[in-house]
């Protein structure tokens, strides 16, 4: 094994900088005490390195290890999760700093650091993260070079690392595209693996959707084959709620899977949805979807359900009709659509019963309710006042300000109280076309809730009470509809055109990145390879192509790396000329003879030219083996060789 000499201070600083690049994105996610300990250990190590002091004793580190283990356990209640695993890695990394006696320990640290770079991708795989980690890999690799060539300049080592990585990129691309992909996970993931994703939830209570509306995150992207429908028709259907307990709406009984039964009119819309992970099973589609994606089913209330929770970005082709009439008259559905909590909200019940008594037809009741929302001074706001026990009464007769969930909830309550089967539908309403790549972007801020009422002869019909109270919401989006003081994501409201353009460009780039890089799934791989003319891309074929591809690339690289020098250098040329001159006179330089020996022999053989020959030898040896690179000496050497006559 190689010896383990001390670490130079400059290499220590470089190593710390490259580790910092890897750990930095983790710090906001780590407990504060761990950040503090890591910072303290780093400063301690710099202090020891600068003053060339001995590293602390082992027992102190053991103390830290156990302290840290307990700390991580008490913070996360486990040490085997994803987050706690990262915390432990950071802890060990910073402790290893104080046990780093020589380059061998440093290499261990760099390998750990490579691994920690990967863990960043658990949390974010965006372009900025990728860029930062690329920089981190470059600096860590330069650190490896530092310890393998400790006498070289740092800048030269960084250049070497850059060259290595640049030459690795073609091979990496082959591996990336051809390595047979397996759909993970290979085994159960820790429970916290998918925490922290935003999206609609499987219940609806006041304030839930308005909170979601403040998120700028992208829910899904849509690529229409032809012109997209106008904005007021962009209702993206999500979870449907039947059961109301006075405050919260829930799906109610498990909806059996059904078939897509409806009568469509007008031209269908064909499009492709790229859905961001939201950790639930449902898939979104424009109302109403006329086909079911693979590995999914549809419920009787027209909700598309994937077999597994959407934990990775998924892509599916869809076809929808915006003009449709449902034909579903299952009696049990109608009964569930009349459920109301026992007691509470007496004024709303009374109002609905009055309508039912005075108005003749079902549609007249619906229209009366919508008029009520339009004319009674309702305010559409993201910050409604808190509601008490009789939330519907308080909203309808008291505060009269709320977000879409308040409108949908109270509207359905009124309909049910008036004897009309009704249900709440959540999803998204709207979407912006990105002019850069023509993808429609639907954000969490487009989250919406509306109502469906069963009308005899027409089936389930969509009514949007929010649109009655605030038509702008449906026509122009939430930013235009709510008061200017409401907290919205900055970007949703900005009127700065350049900022908007910048954002569109960035979104388009991020979308490309998602589609091409992050969305490279086993299916995509098959499609991609088939489009390249690979018949039947089985894993054997891929592995074989991969093998030959990598081998071919490496062979090319070898040929290029080991290319011979084109012209020998001037010093060597002069020397060879000198050797040739003596060789013609009958004293050639034998192959094993070093320059010094040859000159001595030649000087002895030609005493008249001995001084000149020795001068040639001295200059040649100085130029070739010495450190200096002297142009004048080279000129002298050439003149001496030229004028040599033996």
């Amino acid at each position, binding site marked *: 094994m*190689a010896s383990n000499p001390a670490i130079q201070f400059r290499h220590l600083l470089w190593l710390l900088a490259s580790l910092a690049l890897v750990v930095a994105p983790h710090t906001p996610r780590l407990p504060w005490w761990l950040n503090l300990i890591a910072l303290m250990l780093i400063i301690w190590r710099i202090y020891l390195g600068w003053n060339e002091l001995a590293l602390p004793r082992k027992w102190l580190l053991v103390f830290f290890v156990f302290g840290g283990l307990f700390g991580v356990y008490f913070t996360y209640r486990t040490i085997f999760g994803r987050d706690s695993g990262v915390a432990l890695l950071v802890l060990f990394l910073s402790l290893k700093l104080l046990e780093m006696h020589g380059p061998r320990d440093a290499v261990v640290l760099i390998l750990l650091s*490579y691994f920690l770079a990967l863990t960043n991708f658990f949390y974010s795989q965006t372009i900025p993260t990728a860029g930062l*980690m690329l920089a981190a890999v470059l600096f860590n*690799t330069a650190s490896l070079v530092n310890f393998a060539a400790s006498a070289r300049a740092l800048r030269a080592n960084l250049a*070497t690392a850059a060259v290595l990585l640049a030459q690795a990129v073609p091979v990496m691309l082959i591996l990336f595209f051809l390595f047979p992909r397996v759909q993970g996970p290979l085994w159960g993931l820790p429970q916290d693996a998918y925490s922290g994703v935003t999206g609609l939830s499987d219940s609806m209570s006041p304030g839930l959707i308005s909170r979601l509306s403040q998120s700028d995150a992208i829910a899904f992207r849509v690529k229409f084959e032809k012109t997209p429908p106008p904005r007021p028709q962009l209702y993206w259907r999500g979870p449907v709620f039947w059961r109301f307990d006075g405050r919260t709406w829930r799906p109610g009984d498990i909806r059996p899977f059904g078939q897509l039964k409806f009568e469509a009119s007008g031209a269908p819309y064909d499009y492709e949805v790229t859905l961001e992970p939201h950790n639930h099973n449902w898939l979104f589609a424009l109302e109403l979807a006329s086909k079911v994606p693979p590995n999914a089913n549809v419920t009787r209330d027209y909700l598309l359900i994937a077999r597994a929770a959407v934990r990775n970005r998924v892509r599916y082709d869809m076809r929808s009709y915006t003009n449709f009439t449902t034909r579903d008259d299952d009696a049990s559905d109608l009964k569930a659509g009349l459920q109301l909590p026992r007691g509470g909200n007496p004024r709303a019940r009374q109002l609905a019963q009055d309508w039912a008594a005075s108005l003749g037809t079902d549609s007249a009741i619906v229209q009366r309710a919508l008029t009520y929302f339009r004319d009674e001074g309702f305010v559409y706001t993201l910050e409604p006042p808190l509601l008490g026990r009789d939330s519907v009464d308080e909203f309808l007769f008291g505060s009269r300000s709320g977000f879409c969930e308040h409108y949908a909830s109270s509207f359905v309550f009124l309909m049910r109280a008036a004897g009309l089967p009704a249900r709440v539908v959540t999803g998204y309403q709207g979407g912006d076309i990105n002019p850069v790549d023509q993808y429609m972007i639907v954000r969490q801020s487009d989250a919406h809730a509306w109502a469906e009422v069963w009308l005899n002869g027409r089936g389930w019909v969509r009514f949007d009470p929010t649109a009655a109270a605030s038509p702008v919401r449906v026509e122009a989006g939430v930013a235009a509809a709510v008061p200017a003081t409401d907290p919205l994501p900055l970007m949703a409201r900005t009127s700065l055109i350049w900022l908007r353009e910048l954002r569109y460009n960035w979104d388009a780039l991020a979308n490309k990145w998602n589609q091409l890089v992050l*969305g490279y*799934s086993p299916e995509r791989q098959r499609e991609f390879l088939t489009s390249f003319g690979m018949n039947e891309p089985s894993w054997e074929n891929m592995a074989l192509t991969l093998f030959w591809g990598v081998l071919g690339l490496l062979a090319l690289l070898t040929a290029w790396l080991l290319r011979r*020098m084109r012209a020998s250098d001037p010093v060597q040329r002069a020397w060879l000329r000198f050797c040739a001159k003596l060789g013609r006179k009958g004293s050639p330089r034998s192959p094993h003879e070093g320059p010094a020996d040859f000159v001595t022999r030649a000087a002895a053989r030609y005493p008249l030219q001995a001084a000149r020959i020795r001068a040639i030898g001295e200059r040649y040896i100085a130029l070739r083996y010495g450190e200096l690179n002297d142009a004048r000496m080279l000129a002298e050497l050439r003149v001496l060789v030229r004028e040599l006559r033996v």
Partner: protein
Amino acid sequence: MNAILQGILQRSQFYNAFFGPRVPEPGPIYLQQRRVYILPTRPGLAFCLALLVMLVGSINYNLSLGYILTFLLASMGMVAILHTFRNLVHLHILPGRVEPVFAGEVAWFELFVENHSAYDRCSISFSHQGRATPCDVASARGATVSIPATALKRGWLAPGRITVDTRFPIGLLRAWSYIQPDMRCLVYPKPDDALLPLPEPTGGTGARRAAAGGSDDFAGLRAYQSGDSPRHIHWKAVARGQGLQTKVFGGQANAELWLDWNLLPAGMGVEERLSRLTRWVLQADREGLRYGLRLPGVVLQPDTGEAHRLACLRELALHGL
């Protein structure tokens, strides 16, 4: 048949890896591709393990960027194989000078390392007897490396097998080659440290004893050297506090001193005799005496000077070998 088999064996990497060059190679040694070997170091194996874990993690969590990172590092490792290999291959190593040494000293074998390629060679190390000598060679330049070897006994010392290796650029791989340059270092016997003086001159133009008697002309004074006869010390100068000085007589330069194997005590062993004679040669040369050397089977007539001293030492070094 046997010869063919032998030829195939010697050309194969496998054979060379295990047995290396057995005989010294005369002339410049060219590190051709066939004789440069490469394997991962222990950190290199750890790197492979880390990559495997990273790959499994990427599959399990469906991390596209995880795949990219893992594949980038794996490709970097593959590219590094080529870089490490080319850092060593195609070097020319020429034997250089070797200065004779006395037994017990360190002999330095000088090698010229020539880089005829268009790229710099970094962090090449020459290991011999557990000691590593680092060396960097810029593109189209040469460098000299001096490889130390402890000379244990007199005679010819060959460096034997030298390992040339490098871990550049990332330290996860080691390329190496064995060389055995055709060099030898003459090792003189170690001069003994007995305090016995030189033997008395015999024969020649006059006996030393006679010279000591005062018949020769006083030639001057010089600083005292160990072994000088107490009778020649200039005691008056000592009394004046001028330090020890020895009187030199003109006749001494002409006196002939025979350093004779046979005049040493009969009980002495061969190496002890050679050590004694070596010291006497050095001392006689230092004192500017004319001395001759008589060994079994070899007689060097009395003479002075550098060439004579070297000839005597060479005979002593190679006696009986």
